[in-house]
């Protein structure tokens, strides 16, 4: 042997001699996997006291995956955010998170993040971008954002006032505007506190309380208490099954848009059979109830008299109850009428606390704002538009023709984390920091914490050095526009810290650290009381059975991809849909009898055409949808949104013709469509191909009477 055999290689030869090395790259005995000097370790320079390598530290922050604004604890180790959990101290979610919250990590670490400012698709530096904007600004700039609150909202208003008083359009596709309008009209308080946990019966008309409505994690926690002994009864009336419908004791399929008729029908049954007085109702309500006879309800919604009386009987035998309605103003108003008739106001509906620093309040987004923006743009009243936190080009109904509305705007600036359909149409794109690397303060959607404002702090260093937080961008723009009083803040952190210290009345480090540890700060609130007021104008839509070959399309929302903003997160694309269990693609839910009528079987492709667009997707047959409806969940069908979303699924929002609700101006999420089979079929990829248990005791069910008999056994 030329080389000296040292002891180690002798043992290695000995070990290998017997067995003989198998294929290349085989796993040598544990000797060989030991490396010396291959990997490097960088020691700290001057570490913080509490930072110990190998031990995770939990920082409190806020989840911005939807407008509910739950409190979050993020686990950080060696400077990397690894896991998000709920913040136990924030009253909204009390330590819990939904799957969108868990996936916020992937929004932060997404490989398709925008990492530097761009003009016309070419990377530029921040000074160049700001100079370009300053040079190209024409007229008073306007802001289009999602729901926004806290100190960013204050800065946004400051920028708008300082630069010519442009308008602020808060746009949210999934919102509760109808319910807020109905509450404002009947109670004088747009966002009353709803106590599901105190109710013994909850009746929901089209409001997916457990899924996407206002603050799902809070309502799910209340649902947990609602189901504990004494067990509450959940009834849901909606055209297509949502997560709330799936958990209902009694799920009722109503023709799309006819929920108001059903609600008034129930009120009519209450008045006639249970002689519940309708005298104390706002004017216009009593005669609307009388007009809604069971036969008319059946004609409008397909819900028969027996179901109406069963709902009424449940309401009467389980009080206090709580009735929620959303989707159209009539539905919400009818639900509020039922609440007034049943005396729920004060029991399960209580006044919300009014935030004293009102300017921090939530500017809750609506689709009416999108309609106004489009109208103003078409009319040329918008010279410069800043767009952030929303994707109008994707979520706008086809009928709105948002593309050419945007083309009429001189300068369009997108402040975004990802390239999406809207940034394609914008001239300047500014890279936005993710929720895990930015400062901020947010007011949660429900007033559960009575004035609790959630603080957002960065969990780790910025992944990409060029990105800036929304607060910093607003502060920069406002200082450029020459607003007074903001000159001495060199970044948003300084502004936020001074503002919050002013709020808690102490400007010292320990108090500030206490706020950051709690992840929230208590803002002063004033109590509010309900004021009964005037008239309710009702025009219940005549929802008839659609003509042959036509169905009414519903764009359902799901807690996951939500309105499409989370389509670029692989965890949520691969998370099976709660109802159909489908992954990585869109589908159209249709009732088996309707499908039989159209000659469709599971997995057939159908083309759904409305007068403002057409989509082709596969059919999913199940009995959780009204026979006259075809439900396509929104969220997929992006044409430009990163590797995980582009070209996956179809976008039903483009099919909506944009008809607006009378009172609130919100787009209705139903439109009449033609459905034709395309003839080809491919198996819809789902978590499980079977919906039955084949007689095995897997998810067993018992009746509520059996539970009550064994109340001790719970």
């Amino acid at each position, binding site marked *: 042997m030329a080389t000296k055999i040292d002891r180690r290689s002798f043992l290695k030869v000995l070990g290998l001699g017997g067995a003989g090395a198998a294929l290349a790259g085989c796993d040598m005995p544990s000797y060989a996997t030991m490396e010396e000097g291959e990997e490097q370790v960088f020691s700290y320079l001057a570490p913080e006291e509490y930072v110990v390598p190998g031990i995770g530290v939990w920082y409190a922050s806020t989840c911005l995956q939807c407008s509910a604004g739950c409190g979050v604890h993020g686990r950080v180790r060696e400077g990397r955010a690894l896991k998000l959990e709920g913040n136990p101290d924030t009253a909204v979610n009390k330590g819990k998170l939904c799957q969108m919250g868990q996936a916020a*990590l992937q929004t932060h670490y997404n490989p398709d993040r925008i990492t530097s400012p761009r003009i016309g698709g070419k990377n530029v530096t921040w000074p160049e971008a700001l100079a370009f904007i300053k040079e190209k600004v024409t007229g008073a700039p306007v802001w289009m954002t999602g729901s926004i609150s806290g100190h960013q909202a204050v800065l946004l208003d400051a920028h708008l006032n300082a630069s010519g008083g442009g308008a602020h359009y808060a746009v949210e596709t999934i919102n509760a505007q109808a319910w807020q309008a109905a509450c404002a009209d009947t109670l004088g308080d747009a966002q009353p506190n709803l106590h599901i946990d105190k109710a013994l019966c909850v009746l929901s008309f089209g409001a997916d309380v457990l899924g996407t409505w206002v603050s799902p994690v809070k309502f799910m926690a209340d649902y947990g208490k609602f189901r504990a002994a004494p067990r509450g009864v959940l009834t849901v009336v909606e055209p297509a*099954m949502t997560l709330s419908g799936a958990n209902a004791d009694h*799920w009722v399929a109503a023709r799309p848009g006819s929920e108001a008729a059903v609600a008034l029908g129930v009120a009519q049954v209450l008045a006639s059979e249970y002689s519940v007085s309708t005298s104390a109702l706002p004017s216009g309500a009593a005669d609307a109830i009388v007009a809604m006879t069971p036969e008319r309800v059946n004609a409008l919604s397909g819900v028969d008299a027996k179901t109406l009386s069963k709902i009424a009987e*449940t309401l009467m035998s389980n009080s206090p109850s709580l009735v929620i309605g959303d989707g159209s103003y009539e539905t919400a108003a009818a639900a509020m009428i039922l609440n007034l008739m049943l005396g729920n106001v004060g029991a399960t509906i209580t006044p919300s606390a009014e935030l004293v620093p009102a300017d921090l309040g939530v500017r809750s987004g609506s689709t009416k704002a999108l309609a106004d923006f489009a109208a103003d743009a078409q009319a040329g009243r918008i010279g410069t538009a800043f767009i952030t936190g929303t994707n109008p080009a994707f979520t706008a109904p086809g009928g709105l023709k948002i593309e050419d509305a945007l083309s009429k705007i001189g300068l369009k600036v997108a402040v975004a984390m990802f390239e999406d359909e809207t940034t394609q149409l914008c001239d300047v794109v500014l890279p936005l920091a993710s929720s895990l690397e930015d400062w901020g303060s947010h007011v949660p959607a429900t007033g559960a914490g009575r004035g609790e404002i959630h603080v957002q702090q960065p969990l780790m260093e910025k*992944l990409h050095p060029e990105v800036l937080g929304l607060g910093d961008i607003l502060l920069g723009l406002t200082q450029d526009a020459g607003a007074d009083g903001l000159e001495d803040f060199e970044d948003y952190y300084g502004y936020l810290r001074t503002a919050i210290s002013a709020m808690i009345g102490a400007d010292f480090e320990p108090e500030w650290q206490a706020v950051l540890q709690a992840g929230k700060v208590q803002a002063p609130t004033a109590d509010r009381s309900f004021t009964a007021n005037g008239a309710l104008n009702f025009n219940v839509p005549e929802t008839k059975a659609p003509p042959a070959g036509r169905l009414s399309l519903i764009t359902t929302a799901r*807690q996951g991809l939500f309105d499409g903003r989370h389509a670029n997160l692989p965890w949520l694309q*691969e998370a099976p849909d709660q109802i159909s269990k489908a992954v990585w693609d869109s589908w159209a839910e249709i009732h088996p009898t309707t499908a039989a009528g159209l000659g469709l079987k599971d997995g057939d492709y159908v083309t759904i055409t409305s007068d403002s667009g057409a989509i082709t997707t596969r059919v999913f047959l199940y009995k*959780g949808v009204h026979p006259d409806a075809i439900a396509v969940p929104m969220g997929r069908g992006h044409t430009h949104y990163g590797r995980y979303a582009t070209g996956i699924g179809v976008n039903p929002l483009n099919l909506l013709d944009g008809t607006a609700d009378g009172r609130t101006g919100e787009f209705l999420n139903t439109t009449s469509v033609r459905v034709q089979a395309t003839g080809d079929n491919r198996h819809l990829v789902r978590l499980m191909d079977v919906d039955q*248990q084949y007689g095995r005791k897997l998810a067993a069910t018992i*009746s509520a009477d059996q539970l009550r008999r064994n109340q001790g056994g719970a």
Partner: protein
Amino acid sequence: MPSLLGNIFKGWADYSKGNEEGGHHDYEHMYALAIDLDLCTGCNACSTACYAENNLATVGEDKFGARQAMHWLRVERYFDEPDMDKIEETNDTDTQSRGASFLPMMCQHCNAAPCEPVCPVGATYHTVDGLNAQVYNRCIGSRYCANNCPFRVRYFNFYDNADSWPAPMDQQLNPDLSVRSKGVMEKCSMCLQRTRAARDTAKREGRELQDGDIQTACQQTCPTSAIMFGDLLDETSAISKIWKRHQVKLGVYKQDKENPELRGYRIFEELNVDTKVLYLERVREV
């Protein structure tokens, strides 16, 4: 010589004792779950939290369709209610009037696990904490364990799923457990890394592990608190109370409850695999 041969003789003692008393070990803990199906809304937060905590790979539509996905905890959804106690209105009405029933299904950590005796290299075994552990370095991928699992909750790395974490998404990987390479079987470990961290903390503070020290990722994020984790050997723990209240005992293949109408049950109990996840029956108004 004594260290190696000794190992087999000493091992033989444990091994034979294991057989004599029907798989009995002297357990330090007996970790188990209890899931209330009436509280479970099927929102899938637990499954996504499991993806985040345990470095699960996302495999895309084709491999998901070929059933090669890695969802350690899957939330199943059924539309039928096989034994809803004999109500006259059966399920073939034309509307899904009683909603759907959801079932979070993960490894049941059976005490008489059918996957443990069949693994040729002993990569899966029953720990002294009563968990069915899967040692990723020892697994050679014979896959007999997955065939023998009646719940089909063992997932195999058919591919090297390294492309599930393109930079910078690989920074999200949890360093407390390994990222599995191709050819290795993996399954729900009941957040073994959290149990280990809690045990280290308890030892550092010089105290025994108490109930509530360990929260699995699914338990912590479940919005309705339907999932509960705990140590059955600790009489005072919440999980022991739930198992006792529903009169469900370990080690039997048929429960003899005084009140048979109690909601607690175990899945595939008749197979005598002695699962450790107690499900509480879903409740619906008739």
